[in-house]
């Protein structure tokens, strides 16, 4: 029986150790920014998964001239949103949040609110606003 750490280290290929690590690093980097590079919609994201504000925000999913996701409010005007990163993804014409895909123009209702801590893992794709955001709460 081999005990962990006592196998022959000389036989351990460095590549076999570093390849999975490199893969994980690249995977992590890919997850740092949601959308934009591949023609998908751009969406501002945050990493606050441990708390949420429960104001209701409803409107139609819309996209600005830079390709950034925003909400077209029923009373007029637009509101940019920051989504919890691990619950949001985009394609060229839709946003998936918490397992539900919303196409541009479709009604979207989310819970969220302003945040006193705007540096909580905020990732802002190029051309998207970094202020005046409503932070969508994790489900």
């Amino acid at each position: 029986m081999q005990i962990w750490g006592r196998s022959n280290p000389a036989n351990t290929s460095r590549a076999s150790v570093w390849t999975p690590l490199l893969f994980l690093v690249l995977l992590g980097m890919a997850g740092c920014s949601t959308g934009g590079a591949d023609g998908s919609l751009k969406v501002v994201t945050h990493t606050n998964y441990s708390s949420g504000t429960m104001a209701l925000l409803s409107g139609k999913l819309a996209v600005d001239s830079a390709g950034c996701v925003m909400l077209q409010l029923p009373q007029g005007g637009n509101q940019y949103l920051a989504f919890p990163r691990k619950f949001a993804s985009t394609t060229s014409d839709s946003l998936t949040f918490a397992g539900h895909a919303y196409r541009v123009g479709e009604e979207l209702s989310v819970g969220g609110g302003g945040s006193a801590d705007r540096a909580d893992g905020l990732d802002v794709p190029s051309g998207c606003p970094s202020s005046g955001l409503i932070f969508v709460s994790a489900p």
Partner: protein
Amino acid sequence: MAQRGLPQLSRRVAVNDNRGDAAFYRSSQMMAGIIRTDWGHYVGIHGRYNPSIGATVCRFGVASGATCQVVIDLNRCTAGTCGLVWTDRSVTIPGDSGGPWFYGTYALGIHKGWLDEKQYWYSTSTRRGEVFTPIGTVLSLTGTVLCYDEAPDPKCVAR
């Protein structure tokens, strides 16, 4: 019979920082000193206090309805907002924010949302409770006073 229009609200003060989360809106119409405690139920407020740990507290939200819970901690922070009361469970859903926390006819605070945290440092799971800004903080942050019939603040003036 002529129907009165909905009151117009204008925001005068909004604070969301390490002291708490509260806002003050001025209404175009005089408001009655009542809160909704459940669907179809309203009570007049006769006082206020900041709840302590172990206290039973209740709230009404226009999305999830009425619920009562127990306070498990005070002065909690969520995403930079501090001074929050934390309860032992959560049923809140979008639309509940801004709803009243109360006990009987006493005002206790304003609803914010939810907070997850490990119960013990070695826990692998988290417990989710609700958070709200206590009434004393709401009043101090907005520079307002609570007006009610029995013991009106000298600053309460009938208009």
